[in-house]
């Protein structure tokens, strides 16, 4: 007789009410400063990730505006070379490490548990630790910047310019340590997302009933796990070369600057793919909801996601075509760089088919999705152009590449992100965002973006190299740079209008129902904003679009204890119930561990001994983090003999 029978039971209204109250009580978050610091509710951690990342996006935007002002006219004296180099490096580093990856991780931490029907995220304390490390890294970078120690060798910090001889002072070390902070945060986010998707899905949600955004985050998290170690090695060996005198990249003692480029770009290229893969998941979500029909070609879209992820690891040498590597070797990467357009193409065709055969409502998120099409396709085409070696040798490290990367990153990731923020605003705050303000911000961003970055293609072809703090008059670059500066102003207005929309709607937006957009995924089945325990009563999933296709009388899941934070762990492939698990209680030690780890990392920039002595406090706080407290003990199996009868179930292969 199976342990999880489906029975006919009397489920009265007050039973549901009392269970909800009990759940709200046991999942409540402690108040006060200690409560704030020992947060484990995935919705709060996710929201903090998103808001902090958006603040860094604004800072990065301001830096971009400074650059555009400096380049508006030839031989401008607005920023000197030293300050301009810091500004463009901070812009690149902020946008790539402090905005792009963390904002999608924030969305994952907030929405993956809601979309797979779980009460919380797996390993919540680890997610909290990840957020604190991300915040510490961002604050550390910007404090260094205002102390004139901001990195100034570009967001990929090539050796030997960033090496011991040509980067005096601590600027290059600041960049290397920031990489340590943000990679710890994103690795932690990746593990948390993978475990939640694999083990916390609600019974009935087999792998092929998972929402597309969950697939995108799963694939992105695996990419993070295999890509981040490469930049760990690159930044660690760079800082070792600078502080301890090792010779990884010293060509006179056996090292090689090209080794740094290989190590960095093995991470670098998957990094840009793990930025726009979650956005492809968002696109499927937005298009499905606003075409009011299930997505066409679910299997094709999942295959395309997995294909893009794997192929992303085989392209990195196309960043090094100008480094003089043998032609036959680089031809492999030309072929792969061109063939990766196939999965992206298939995705675009599936979305067009969904729009074609759906009932389209042109809400603001749908507009951002259509903006994605226009901009990302142009970015993809220039991508194919730079994949060909002879052409790349002409446009590599010029403004043509700057235009390409902004088309694929802003078009590919930021537009779907703004669409998703508008789409999920009711779920975050319980209030509807204003449609009119949304329209204004979309058109400001769309026109401003194209006015800024389309002229850059021509600038690149006219021979303007990348990362120049100024340029000589008389080369035909003046009007194009002026247009770009005007476009940047429009984009700034667009970003400002989004902030206004958020603030205004927070106070005066109309109240949002559970499912204002009539979407199909599970996060719209609970109240907005969701209660601490996310769902009650939880119904077994019956189809790929539960809110549209599930029969109303799906069995309710009962038996998960409501007197403590308990979650149902299910099997990977078919989400069959496996065992009940006591989710960790709120705990302040992850925050304190992050503080001591920050002190250790910053100290290690000044003396290698800081790593030895600095690692003792985090070790002690880790013990406190994992030490079982009274509330952490699993009373069903304490003392251990009580667990004996459950033993053969617990160890079966399942």
């Amino acid at each position, binding site marked *: 007789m199976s342990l999880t029978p489906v029975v*006919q039971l*009397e489920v009265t209204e007050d039973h549901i009410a009392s269970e909800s109250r009990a759940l709200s009580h046991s999942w409540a978050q402690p108040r006060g400063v200690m409560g704030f610091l020992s947060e484990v509710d995935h919705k709060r951690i996710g929201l903090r990730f998103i808001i902090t990342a958006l603040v860094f996006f604004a800072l990065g935007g301001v830096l971009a505006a400074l650059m555009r002002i400096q380049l508006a006219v030839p031989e401008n004296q607005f920023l000197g070379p030293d300050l301009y180099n810091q500004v463009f490096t901070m812009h690149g580093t902020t946008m790539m490490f402090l905005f792009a990856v963390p904002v999608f991780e924030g969305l994952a931490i907030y929405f993956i548990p809601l979309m797979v029907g779980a009460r919380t995220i797996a*390993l919540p304390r680890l997610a909290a630790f990840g957020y604190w490390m991300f915040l510490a890294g961002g604050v550390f970078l910007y404090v260094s910047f205002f102390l004139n120690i901001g990195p100034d060798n570009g967001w990929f910090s090539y050796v030997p310019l960033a090496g011991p001889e040509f980067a005096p002072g601590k600027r290059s070390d600041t960049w290397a340590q920031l990489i340590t902070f943000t990679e710890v945060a994103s690795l932690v986010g990746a*593990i948390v997302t993978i*475990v939640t998707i694999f083990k916390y899905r609600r019974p009935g949600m087999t792998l092929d009933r998972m929402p597309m955004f969950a697939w995108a985050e799963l694939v992105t998290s695996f990419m993070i796990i295999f890509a*981040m170690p490469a930049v760990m090695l690159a930044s660690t060996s760079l800082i070792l070369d600078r502080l301890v005198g090792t010779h990884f990249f010293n060509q006179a003692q056996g090292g090689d600057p090209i080794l740094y480029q290989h*190590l960095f770009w093995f991470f670098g290229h998957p990094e840009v793919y793990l930025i726009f893969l979650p956005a492809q998941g968002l696109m499927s979500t937005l298009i499905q909801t606003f075409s009011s029909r299930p997505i066409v070609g679910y299997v094709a879209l999942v295959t395309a996601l997995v294909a893009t992820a794997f192929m992303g690891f085989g392209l990195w040498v196309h960043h090094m075509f100008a480094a003089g590597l043998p032609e036959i070797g680089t031809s492999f990467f030309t072929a792969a760089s061109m063939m990766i357009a196939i999965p992206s193409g298939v995705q675009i065709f599936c979305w067009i088919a969904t729009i074609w055969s759906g009932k389209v409502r042109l809400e603001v998120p749908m507009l951002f999705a259509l903006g994605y099409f226009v901009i990302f396709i142009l970015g993809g085409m220039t991508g194919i152009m730079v994949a060909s070696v002879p052409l790349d040798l002409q446009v590599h490290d010029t403004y043509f590449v700057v235009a390409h990367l902004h088309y694929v990153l802003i078009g590919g990731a930021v537009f779907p992100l703004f669409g998703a923020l508008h789409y999920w605003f009711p779920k975050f705050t319980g209030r509807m965002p204003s449609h009119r303000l949304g329209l204004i911000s979309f058109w400001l961003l769309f026109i401003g973006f194209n006015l800024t970055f389309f002229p850059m293609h021509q600038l690149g072809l006219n021979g303007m190299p990348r990362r120049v703090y100024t340029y000589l008059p008389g080369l035909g670059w003046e009007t194009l740079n002026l247009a770009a500066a005007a476009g940047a102003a429009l984009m700034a207005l667009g970003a400002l209008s989004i902030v206004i929309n958020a603030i205004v709607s927070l106070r005066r937006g109309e109240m949002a129902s559970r499912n204002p957009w009539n979407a199909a995924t599970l996060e719209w089945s609970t109240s907005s904003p969701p209660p601490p325990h996310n769902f009650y009563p939880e119904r077994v999933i019956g189809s790929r679009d539960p809110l549209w296709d599930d029969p109303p009388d799906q*069995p309710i899941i*009962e038996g998960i204890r409501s007197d403590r934070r308990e979650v149902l762990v299910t099997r990977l492939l078919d989400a069959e119930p496996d065992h009940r698990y006591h989710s960790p209680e709120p705990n302040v030690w992850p925050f304190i561990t992050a503080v001591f780890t920050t002190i250790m990392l910053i100290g290690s920039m000044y003396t290698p001994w800081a790593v030895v002595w600095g690692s003792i406090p985090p070790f002690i706080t880790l013990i406190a983090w994992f030490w079982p407290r009274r509330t952490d003990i699993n009373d069903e199996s304490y*003392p251990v003999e009580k667990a004996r009868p459950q033993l053969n179930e617990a160890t079966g292969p399942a």
Partner: protein
Amino acid sequence: MTTRVLDVSRLPSFAFGHRSILWWATMGMILIEGTAFGLLAVSYIYLKWRVPEWPPGFAPPDLVWGTVTTIIILASALPNELARRAAERLDVPRARLWIWVSVIFAIAFCVTRALEFTTLNVWWDSNAYGSIVWFLLGTHTAHVVTDILDTGVLSTMLLIAPIDANRMVDVAENASYYYFVIASWLPIYVLLYLAPRLV
């Protein structure tokens, strides 16, 4: 009115092996550090392949302590496996015994590892060969030290903290991380000690 209910209350409150959350978290860490070791090995081979003579002008590290460490590491797999099996039988005294034995083994090969560092015949700042050798050995030693401390804390937990089934799951999953530390040492041993001599 009656509704259909999926009653999960009789499910166990813990699980071993790949059904437990901790196994997946450990697997995540193993994948990350495995990739890091893989890339370190590729960098080693990249630097080795650039120069005709490797190690360039230095004697390769002596085999003595490296081999002793490898033997102890392989031997330490035994107490670990016994600790894991005891944990999965919820046999606390035996688990406690074998986990302490594996801590002692780990401390032993930590000592031989320290001696190993003295026989490398090269400093980390003499040339790229020295740098990559110290980096490889240093990274693995960092994993060994963290694993000793981690297992040590777990062992003291088994002594003084209240023990429930989840602690037993911790002991079992700690073993799987330990196997990774052992498994990652073997290719490094081949690269550092045998590659300069054979190839």
